[in-house]
């Protein structure tokens, strides 16, 4: 693992991966949008409004996936002082926050016509709102210190404490009475959703995953270069 802790090697490998990830993202998004907007049928109860699901559900999955990645990278950074892991956690936060924001916004746009309310304080919605605040708190803490290493460690501890919220979100629809529907794809007895609706969902999820990998590599590259700039400036200042 420490082989990949070498920033120069990381920069070389990620420069090779970035164009492929960008192409995969665009290809999967095109296919996903075609399936979501044109090829899939309207729902027999929800009509065309069900198409919101194809951005809402993948965005919500990514919100949880990014948080889990951020917490895992934070743990690796704290335990092994792995520099790339520390930068990955930092680079993941704004991407996860964006997906969480989109899950909340598209959920609201779906809730209004289906439930009659933009927002309800139910277990699923409230726990996802807390996830959004955890991301914002992580980013604020990361930037609150003059020393980037200290900021990163403080934020990593927050990320690890906040991980308890992830299973709470996943099981909130089973543990509490909620307006939000229970899981219909990731469940023990297999997906309870028709293949014509499962396909666009999975393609959009794959597109969002490639998007995450693409953007996180760009942001980690950018952080490595920022570190080099800090080092050079420090050396020049001390002559």
């Amino acid at each position, binding site marked *: 693992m420490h082989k990949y802790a070498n920033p120069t090697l990381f920069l070389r490998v990620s420069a090779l991966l970035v164009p492929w990830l960008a192409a995969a993202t665009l290809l999967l998004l095109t296919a996903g949008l075609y399936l979501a907007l044109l090829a899939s049928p309207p729902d027999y109860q929800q009509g*065309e409004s069900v198409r919101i699901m194809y951005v809402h559900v993948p965005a919500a999955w990514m919100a949880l996936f990014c948080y889990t990645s951020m917490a895992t990278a934070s743990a690796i950074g704290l335990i092994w002082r792995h520099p790339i892991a520390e930068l990955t956690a930092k680079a993941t936060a*704004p991407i996860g926050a964006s997906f969480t924001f989109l899950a909340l916004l598209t959920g609201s746009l779906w809730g209004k016509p289906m439930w009659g309310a933009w927002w309800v304080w139910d277990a699923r919605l409230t726990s996802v709102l807390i996830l959004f605040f955890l991301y914002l708190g992580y980013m604020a803490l990361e930037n609150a210190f003059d020393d980037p290493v200290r900021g990163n460690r403080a934020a990593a501890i927050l990320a690890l404490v906040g991980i308890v919220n992830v299973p709470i979100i996943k099981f909130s629809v089973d543990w509490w009475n909620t307006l939000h529907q229970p899981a219909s794809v990731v469940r023990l007895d297999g997906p309870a959703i028709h293949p014509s609706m499962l396909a666009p969902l999975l393609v959009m999820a794959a597109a969002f995953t490639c998007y995450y990998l*693409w*953007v996180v590599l760009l942001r980690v590259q950018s952080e490595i*270069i920022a570190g080099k700039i800090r080092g050079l400036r420090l050396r020049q200042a001390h002559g």
Partner: protein
Amino acid sequence: MSFVEMGGYAAYVWPAFGATAVVLTVLVATSLRSLRVRKQILEGLQRDGEAGRVACGRKSAT
């Protein structure tokens, strides 16, 4: 019913897809921009560093 009308749900469906497009585009654009700007700064600093070393080398030679 036309595609644009989305069975009467156009006011909910299109903003959902539009907001997703805007947020994801802005995030990748700012990430690309910050990477480009930082690469330029680093190249500038490295060039200055080279120039500084060359100048120092001349001074010590004389």
